C-alpha cells in the first residue's frame, strides 16, 4: 500500500467526552501522517469510524457518574497494523457478541455492529472491575 510503516504510539487518558473525542480524532490524524496515508484513505477512515464508535461508548458509559478514574487509551501502528485499546471502569457490556444492526428506523444501536464490521478484530474482555477493549485493523 506504499506506506512508510513507521512505528507510531499515542497514549492518553480521558475524563471528558468532548475532549476525549477531540483527542481520538487527533490521534488518527497523527496516525495517518505516520503511515503516510492520504486523508481519504479508506482503511484509515474505516478504523477512525470504528474507533469513534467504541470511544464514544467508552467515554459515555465507562465513567460511572462521569467522574474519575479516567478512560485509558492507547494507539499503536506497527508494520501497517494499527492496534488501539481502551480500559474503562464502567459496567460490563453484556450483549457485546450478539448485538446486531438494528432496523432502518432505529435511532440507536448501530455503533457496535459497525465497529465489528469495519475492524479486523474487536475484542472485549471484562477483567474484574474494568472493561478492556482491543481494536485491530490491517491498513
Amino acid at each position, binding site marked *: 500500500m506504499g506506506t512508510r510503516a513507521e512505528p507510531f504510539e499515542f497514549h492518553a487518558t480521558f475524563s471528558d467526552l468532548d475532549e476525549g473525542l477531540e483527542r481520538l480524532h487527533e490521534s488518527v490524524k497523527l496516525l495517518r501522517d505516520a503511515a503516510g496515508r492520504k486523508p481519504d484513505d479508506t482503511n484509515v477512515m474505516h478504523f477512525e469510524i470504528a474507533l469513534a464508535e467504541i470511544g464514544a461508548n467508552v467515554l459515555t458509559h465507562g465513567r460511572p457518574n462521569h467522574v474519575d478514574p479516567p478512560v485509558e487509551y492507547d494507539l499503536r501502528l506497527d508494520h501497517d497494523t494499527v492496534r488501539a485499546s481502551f480500559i474503562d471502569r464502567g459496567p460490563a457490556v453484556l450483549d457485546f457478541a450478539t448485538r446486531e444492526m438494528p432496523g432502518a428506523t*432505529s435511532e440507536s444501536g448501530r455503533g457496535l455492529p*459497525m465497529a465489528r464490521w469495519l475492524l479486523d478484530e474487536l475484542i472485549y474482555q471484562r477483567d474484574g472491575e474494568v472493561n478492556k477493549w482491543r481494536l485491530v485493523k490491517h491498513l
Partner: protein
Amino acid sequence: MTLEIQSRQANNGVTVVAPTGRLDVAGAPTLKEAISEALKGGPSKVVLDMEGVSFVDSTGLGSVIAALKQIRSSQGDLRLAAPNQQVRVVLELTTLDRVFPYFSTVEEALTGF
C-alpha cells in the same frame, strides 16, 4: 469541536439546516434542537446541508433519523445534501442510504422539493 448550525429559508420556502463540525454523540443534541426549531412554524420541508459536517458517528446518524421521523410526522419531508465521503460510507454501511436518498448539492436537493 462544537457542532454549529445555521438555518435559512430558500426561495421555494424550504428550510436549509446547515451543521458545521462533527455530528457525533456530542453534537447530536444540537441538531435535534435545530430541527425542533425549524418545525415550530408548522409542516416543513427541510434540506440538511451536510457539506460542513466533517465526521458522523452512529449517534449523529440517529439524530438525523430522529429528525426524519419528526419532520414526516408533521407532514413534512427531509432531504440530505452534500455528504462527504465518510458520511456516505456510514450511510451505505448501515444501508440508510436507502432511507436517505442523498443529493450532491443543496441546489439539487432543493430542485422540485
